[in-house]
């Protein structure tokens, strides 16, 4: 393992923990690329300097979280009570009380719809705005922002927080990265454990290297020379191009600090919760502070709710009600509220767009297995900061939560709105040849 520094964690427990920033090999990382592609049209001042895209992979049940239907028949409404929010007339379920208590500071869309019923396709659709097939796969929203911004010299412009590329069982979600913009705009993959240990899995290729023991750049080069074949085998053809940036990330103290959660107080870390998602949310905030333009904060790498070898995602074909009440909602509610409050208190929320959503909803009618299955026609998202007007309820679902009433809002509109808030207007998007046909969700602005 390629450990770049070790940090004594200050915890409220009786014993300390050690936290390591683990780095190994760079993928097609876009930071450090020249900004020459940025056109005059793209240079307009963005309302959102950074984006945190909270991806609830697997598809959370809208009826059991943020779009309850307490008057629906028992076959639909589920066992959870509706509670008031700070927005008049709007209710959530009792599973997300902290979210409910902050509803006046964000806006919610309840009329999303997607065309894709399965995870891989719906995942790509949610992350790119387009279907995975036919090829070519379009770029992730983050890749678009990465190309637009370029990023600081020592930090990548697009970071995806998970234990690797988002997958559905053994299959990679093609919309995870650069798509038509090239792998140079793939995200830097960063994992974060429940204890706050940060790891960059791709760099495991450089096993045995330790930059802290390297006295000069030549020394690092000589060590890296020992692994080019491994890099080639892994298909990292952009390594050479991004070598300088990778070097900077590895050895630049400021860059390393962005990944070091031990610099946070015990109180702050506790506020987010010592869960993988909680500490990843805190890491996302640190990356915003460090100037990373786009962070995809994945609740899990895999969607499966309970399956050996996979994290517990939101795909609750089984144990929907139990997993939501026992695990997912308490973790999400705590971490999201902490992230939201933290961004507010640090004065970052106005320049940080936070979008939270899954790839689809779940069946309003409870399944024969007393759970809920995939439901593409209707789901929700939450939008905060970065130029979004708070306190709005945009769109509505019908009596049973089966379909939007009136016009639905597509994943392409989500990406287009994110791009618009990040300073890519219609002309800039056209010049980049991305998000074709997309419309901005004007009701958010």
């Amino acid at each position, binding site marked *: 393992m390629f450990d770049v520094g070790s940090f004594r964690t200050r915890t*409220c*427990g*009786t*014993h300390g923990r050690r936290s390591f920033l683990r780095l190994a090999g760079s993928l097609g990382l876009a930071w450090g690329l020249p900004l020459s592609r940025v056109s005059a049209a793209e240079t307009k001042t963005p309302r959102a300097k950074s984006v945190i895209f909270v991806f609830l992979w697997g598809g959370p049940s809208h009826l059991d979280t943020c779009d309850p239907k307490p008057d629906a028949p*028992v*076959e639909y409404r*589920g*066992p*959870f*009570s509706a509670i008031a929010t700070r927005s008049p007339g709007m209710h959530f379920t*009792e599973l997300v*009380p902290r979210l409910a208590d902050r509803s006046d500071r964000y806006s919610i869309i309840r009329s999303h719809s997607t065309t894709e019923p399965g995870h891989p396709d719906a995942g790509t659709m949610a992350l790119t705005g387009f279907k995975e097939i036919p090829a070519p796969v379009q770029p992730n929203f983050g890749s678009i922002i990465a190309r637009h911004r370029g990023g600081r010299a020592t930090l990548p412009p697009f970071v995806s927080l998970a*234990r690797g590329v988002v997958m559905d*069982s053994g299959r990679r979600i093609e919309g995870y990265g650069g798509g038509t913009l090239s792998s140079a705009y793939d995200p830097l993959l960063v994992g974060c*454990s*429940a204890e706050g240990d940060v790891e960059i899995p791709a760099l495991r290729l450089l096993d045995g290297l330790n930059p802290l023991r390297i006295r000069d750049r030549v020394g690092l080069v000589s060590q890296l020379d020992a692994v080019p074949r491994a890099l080639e085998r892994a298909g990292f053809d952009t390594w050479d191009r991004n070598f300088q940036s990778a070097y900077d990330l590895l050895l630049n103290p400021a860059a390393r600090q962005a990944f070091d959660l031990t610099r946070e107080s*015990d109180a702050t*870390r*506790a*506020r*987010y*919760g*010592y*869960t*993988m998602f*909680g500490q990843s949310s805190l890491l996302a905030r640190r990356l915003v502070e460090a100037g990373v333009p786009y962070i995809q904060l994945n609740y*899990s790498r895999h969607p*499966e*709710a*309970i*399956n*050996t*070898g*996979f*994290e*517990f995602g939101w795909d609750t*074909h*089984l*144990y929907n*009600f*139990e997993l939501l*009440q*026992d*695990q997912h909602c*308490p973790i999400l509610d*705590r971490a999201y509220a902490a992230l939201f409050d933290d961004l507010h208190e640090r004065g970052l929320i106005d320049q940080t767009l936070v979008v939270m959503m899954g790839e689809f909803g779940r069946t309003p*009618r*409870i*399944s*024969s*297995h*007393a*759970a809920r299955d995939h439901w593409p026609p209707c789901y929700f998202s939450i939008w905060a900061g970065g130029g979004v007007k708070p306190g709005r309820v945009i769109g509505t679902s019908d009596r049973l939560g089966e379909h939007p009433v009136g016009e639905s809002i597509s994943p392409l509109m989500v990406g287009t709105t994110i791009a618009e808030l990040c300073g890519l207007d219609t002309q800039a998007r056209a010049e980049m040849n991305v998000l074709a046909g997309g419309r901005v969700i004007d009701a958010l602005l």
Partner: protein
Amino acid sequence: MPCCNPATIEIVPISVGWLSRSPGSFCATLVALAALLTALAAPVSATEPVQLTRDGRLKFSPVVSHDGREIVYVELADPTIYRLTRLNLADGSTKPLHPDARTSEFEPAFSADGKIYAYLKTSGVLRVNLIIQEVGGATLGDVPPADGFSGMRSPAIAPDRKHVVYSFHDGGHQQLFEVDITGKARRALTTSRGINNWPAYSPDGAEVVFGSSRDGDFEIYRMPASGGDAQRLTFSPGQDIRPRFSPDGKQIAFTTHRDGNAEVYVMQSDGSSPRRLTTSPDRDDYPAWYPDGKRLVIVSEQGGRHDLYSISVE
């Protein structure tokens, strides 16, 4: 720490454990001796609540052994697996209940005499089996769900060790079912709408207490162990879940959200005199009785960490 009424507890002596255990290392012995010396040097009583674990990992479903010497609970051992873990109350050491387990195992339940236990085990993609086995011995029953994307929930073993009750889906609802100790002869105990879950036997085995959404949100009910009319015990808004009879059968501990977040309460077994035991702004959940009937072990979220605590009910 979960806030609750100060009380006293016994210092649990180190003794032969509840489950068969492998020989400890020299270091483990030293740790145990140190714990014993610390206990002996301390006052005879300690103020509740008592923190029992300190790793902070997500935890669920603790149960106290029949002799009060161990707790078995579920922890998120890594991001992908639930593991059954044993906590030795004498020295605070933990170890996996099944060291060779490679799939998620959760929701343990033990018979009143500690001889048999049941738990759930993932057996495939979104598929969970009910396992019934002797402590340190043979598997008595391995019950797969009837179809894919399904699994049992919340097993409990009858005091006479003749039956296991659990929750399972049925036509869009979730009912309580009873099987014999080998997992056969399945029989439905409930036929209501909604979700029925978290069954627990009364000490005499005559009744089962459980949670159900049959009337809207989750409330607590009791009924004859053989099924039949259920008596509703709670009437609060929000979830009332995970009921457990006290060892003498006179009280029921449960988790409720009536105060805005998960708190642990006790009430008389007829539903009267509900009394709040925890007041933390964070989550207090999964109450399980000690054999003395004076304390509960709970999972409490404190400072963003999930640990086991012992609290008094007096």
